[in-house]
């Protein structure tokens, strides 16, 4: 791996900037993501910071089923994200579509939507409905460790 890539990966692992993308979710996962910032969980102590733009993101935290309206936007956000970029499918909806797999506006699942743009995308799954904040932190930590 080139030196620059190693540095990028080190930066990502030490202080991942995550960009939150809601592709059609019920709010539960999104609220629990915000919970991570609050004093009880305080995810910033692990270096995790929410990014204001996908261009600054090391990881995309994707919630939701990926509705038909959100599909092309999700792909565009992925393209814009700085690479390397980890895609974290947060919650049952983002992992598989959950109970919405047969819903008329379902256009996911998220991993297939991302792989259409980048077959080699690194994708992580954190299941749960919603995943508890502890599970999210454990999932992110494990994903970073395995990178």
């Amino acid at each position: 791996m080139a030196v620059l890539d190693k540095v990028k990966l080190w930066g990502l692992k030490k202080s991942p900037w995550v960009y939150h993308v809601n592709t059609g979710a019920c709010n539960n996962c999104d609220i629990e993501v915000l919970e991570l910032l609050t004093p009880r969980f305080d995810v910033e102590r692990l270096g995790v910071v929410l990014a204001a733009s996908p261009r600054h993101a090391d990881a995309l935290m994707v919630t939701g089923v990926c509705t038909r309206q959100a599909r092309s936007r999700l792909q565009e956000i992925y393209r814009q994200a700085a690479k390397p970029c980890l895609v974290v499918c947060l919650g049952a909806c983002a992992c598989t579509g959950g109970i919405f797999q047969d819903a008329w506006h379902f256009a996911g699942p998220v991993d297939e939507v991302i792989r259409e743009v980048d077959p080699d995308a690194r994708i992580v799954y954190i299941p749960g409905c919603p995943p508890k904040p502890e599970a999210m932190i454990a999932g992110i930590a494990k994903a970073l460790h395995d990178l």
Partner: protein
Amino acid sequence: MAETVDEVIRHLEEVVGSAALKWERPRPNRVYFTVARDNARETGRRLVEDLGARFATATGTDIGEELEVIYHFECDAVGLVVNMRVRTPKGDPVMPSLTPVVPPAEWIEREINDLLGVVFEGHPDPRRLILADDWPQGVYPLRRDQRNDA
């Protein structure tokens, strides 16, 4: 001074008059009646302006040969829900929009148009509301005879 639910229903009957048919009262504070589509807007207007009811929402259903829209109004003071049914043939799915006289009906009429294909004549802004930009025209997910996706 506070009215009882029976008094409100009597007042309701006066307000809607002969336009309201097929009355049902399955519970003390739930009333259903049907109006011909030509009378829908005027009856809706009377419900909010003369009876002072609040518009809650509307339900669009494919009932076979016809499409049915039930407009749900509420008289909060007595916890009464007034349900006004309007039916239209599937082959000519047009009915007057209530929005000009019942402003909160605006979004739900657009939604029922998206999902069921009812055309609300006189709607001030009949654009697509809830389905994606690239959802095909003419595919109505709530219709029985169509597949759920496109």
